[in-house]
């Protein structure tokens, strides 16, 4: 009887949940350069607060993700080649990436459909379109592509998207505000230049608004600014920072969410005729649950509850909650922050975030990074810090998240003033790594010390009729009784580029029962009975006449 009780007790005891432990392996990996972004004790101008993003792209098609880290003024942004075995090598000079300036964001996509992923980098000042020439070199083609701007702009987030589904990647660029060193008041100069009794850099309030930009891709490799006629230029009373594309209403056409600072966030809904309508307020993504504009920084999207709809997570300022906009279907959102268990982390200024299934249980978890905009806040000796830890939420599979940051290892607990985050499987082992841009420090590369228990699949799509990067493709993976939905996306998070391949945790499933793909061209495709723990490379079938 006693034996039976022991056996029953064991059987009924809850299984120990896998707790990911993250370690920062950037130094061992060779990511040792420091990337400045203004002052670390005090920041005189707002431009020092917003940089910068990162990108994980496979520029030479060797199957390994390479790393791109953007710098503020004072040092070049750098491209690192993934040498394998967890090592990276700086190839910036040889690859032609040497620009110094106030770099902000990056987004990737094969805009010329030549099979090599190109890179767009935003700046305060002129942006740069780097055309990937056969994986051997990046060439600055900004001017010949028609992307030179006629004035100094504070460009921020960006994303390639094929908004008109013509098979060519168009380009969306977020603009924060109008800024110039000579025109901007100094710390303490007016009421918008104070924080907690400290004189700090001025803005965004008090500085002039700007507007976002949409470039349409022409057939000759150039772009045309269609901001006005597409309706993108309409909203001009917002301080916008980052872009997140996705088909939020499920109509097969990409929409654009824009996270905005101290002003309502925007949701440009694709009207399927080359124009967009801004509908954030009515759709429920402009404000928080009290109808208040938050200080939106970055944003990520995921089908975190297996509803088949993409929800949106947005990071905000200290003394504000993060915001989880749950997609209740067809692009109508509710603020689910409170009921999802995300209302308690209010001391952080959040930036980059990524929905990643760390334990491969088939449910997207969430990591976000933090760091205040005012280094001066350290003088106040409160619990609000310029450098702070990250936050890791585990998806509890019931619409709620559990904050497991405190037990997720030094990679999560170390304090930095972080900005951009990119997620990708740098060693193709099914466990996703995280690249983080830290202001005034070397980047972090977060890697799990253990092996996630679940199976996985990495889905790599190659477009033919659609854009070659398959950006905008929607993938539904069914395995182990679960169906997960995701999209191939350029840009996102905080001005960063995740792995263009889609990672799915599969739990204990031994086979992928079904993969359904809706290509950007509109073509639907289905594959059945595929192996797990593999990179599944799927090419869009040629169009049949």
């Amino acid at each position, binding site marked *: 009887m006693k034996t039976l009780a022991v056996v029953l007790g064991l059987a009924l005891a809850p299984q120990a949940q896998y707790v990911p432990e993250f370690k920062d392996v950037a130094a061992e990996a060779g990511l040792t350069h420091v990337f400045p972004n203004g002052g670390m004790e005090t920041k005189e101008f707002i431009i020092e607060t917003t940089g910068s993003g990162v990108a994980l792209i496979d520029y030479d098609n060797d199957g390994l993700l390479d790393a791109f880290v953007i710098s503020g003024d004072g040092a070049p942004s750098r491209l690192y080649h993934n040498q394998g075995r967890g090592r990276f090598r700086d190839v910036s000079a040889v690859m032609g990436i040497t620009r110094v300036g106030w770099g902000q964001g990056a987004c990737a996509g094969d805009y010329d459909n030549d099979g090599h992923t190109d890179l767009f980098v935003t700046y305060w000042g002129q942006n740069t379109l780097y055309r990937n020439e056969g994986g051997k070199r990046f060439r600055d083609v900004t001017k010949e592509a028609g992307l030179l701007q006629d004035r100094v702009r504070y460009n921020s987030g960006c994303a390639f998207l094929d908004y008109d589904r013509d098979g060519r990647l168009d380009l969306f660029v977020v603009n924060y505000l109008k800024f110039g060193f000579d*025109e901007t008041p100094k710390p303490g*100069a007016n009421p918008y230049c104070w924080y907690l009794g400290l004189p700090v850099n001025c803005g965004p309030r008090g500085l002039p608004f700007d507007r976002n930009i949409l470039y349409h891709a022409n057939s000759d490799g150039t772009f045309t600014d269609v901001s006005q006629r597409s309706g993108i230029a309409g909203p001009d009373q917002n301080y916008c920072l980052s872009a997140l594309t996705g088909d939020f209403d499920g109509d097969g056409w990409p929409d654009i969410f824009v996270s905005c600072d101290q002003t309502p966030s925007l949701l440009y809904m694709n009207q399927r005729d080359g124009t967009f309508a801004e509908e954030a*307020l*009515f759709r*429920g993504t402009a404000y928080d649950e*009290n109808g*208040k504009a938050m200080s939106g920084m970055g944003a990520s999207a995921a089908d975190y509850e297996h509803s088949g709809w993409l929800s949106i997570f947005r990071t905000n300022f200290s003394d504000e909650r993060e915001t989880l906009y749950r997609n209740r279907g067809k692009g109508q959102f509710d603020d689910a922050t409170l009921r999802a268990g995300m209302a308690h982390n209010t001391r952080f200024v959040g930036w980059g975030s990524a929905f990643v299934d760390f334990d491969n249980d088939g449910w997207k978890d969430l990591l976000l990074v933090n760091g205040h905009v005012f280094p001066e806040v350290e003088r106040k000796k409160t619990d609000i810090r310029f450098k702070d830890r990250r936050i890791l939420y585990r998806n509890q599979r019931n619409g709620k998240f559990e904050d497991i940051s405190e037990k997720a290892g030094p990679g999560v607990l170390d304090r930095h003033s972080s900005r951009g985050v990119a997620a990708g499987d740098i060693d193709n082992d099914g466990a996703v790594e995280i690249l983080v841009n830290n202001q005034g420090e070397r980047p972090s590369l977060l890697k799990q010390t253990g092996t996630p228990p679940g199976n996985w699949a990495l889905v790599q799509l190659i477009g033919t009729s659609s854009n070659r990067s398959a950006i905008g493709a929607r993938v539904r993976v069914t395995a182990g009784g679960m169906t997960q939905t995701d999209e191939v996306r350029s840009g996102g998070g905080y001005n960063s580029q995740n792995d263009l391949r889609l990672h799915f945790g599969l739990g204990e499933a031994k086979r992928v029962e079904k993969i359904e793909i809706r290509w950007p061209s509109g073509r639907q495709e289905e594959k059945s009975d595929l192996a797990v723990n593999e990179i599944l490379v799927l090419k869009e079938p040629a169009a049949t006449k």
Partner: protein
Amino acid sequence: MTPAINLVLFAALAAAGSDPLVRGLESFRNGDYPAAERELREALKGGGDERAAAFLALTQAATGRCEQAGGALAKAFQGAGGEVERLAGLALAQCHIASNRFEDAGAVVAKLKSKHPSDPDVLYQEARLHMRAWNDTIHRLYQKAPASFRVNQISGEILETQGQFAEAAAEYRKAIEKSPRALSLHFRLGRALLMSSHAPQTLEAALKEFEAEVALNPLDSVAHFQVAQVLLVQQKPRDAAARLERAIELNADFPEALIALGKLRLEEAKNDEAIGLLQRAAKLQPRSEAAHYNLMMAYRNAGRLDEARREKAEIDKLQRVPEGEFSEFLKKLGEKPPAQR
């Protein structure tokens, strides 16, 4: 004396002839009070002008001799009319404040306010009156009852206004120790705790205090509301809803509680119930963004799109940036906006 007095003097000078009154007013305007007094007394000989008497009193008040000025000031304030009456009232209020006669000062200010409701000089005197009265009362409280829990309570409240929440919490704790059954102390302590730290464990400590307040005063709707707020963050929506219902039972016109309960009903897809609650809140607080926003969402979710759009228009109106906010702001700074197209 205020610049306003100088303006009045110009008018008075123009109206008067070349006599001691003119010279007296001129001297008063220049701040040469001995000369002003001399000339105004001269003007008063042989009956004199009422204005001479009023300005003599103003001169005496300006030089701190309120006792001598009092009668004439009061007379001018009662019936001089126009600017002289206003000036006399201001000086009279100032004299009463200086001699700690706050009730008398209050009566003068009340009369001034009824005649000049937007006058900055009057509003300034009123602010001074309240400030002085407040200071005086606090001083007496500290002096007469230094051991009272009220001293700790008021210290906590002052510290809160200064943003020193941890220190405020410490004062409230001392007050509770001295007077465990006094109302509002636990409530204040709970709020100070929430403001003092972002740590999630603070929620539990604050909840304990709000519950203690409810235990002392079960009819305190605001304490019930605060309990509900914490329960919501702790993801206990059912418990929170019960507390909000209780808060509304106790105070049917409690817009924040109506909104919070409306949001919960919205989450439960009880759209009709949510709409009812939120309509009540919007009626009570027509400028509440939270009420209109959630009402819009409730109508939207209920498929009542026309009404949702009407609420959206209301929110758009409420959140519109005041016309010219930034250009005006930059002008004030003397800054040139960046050259932009």
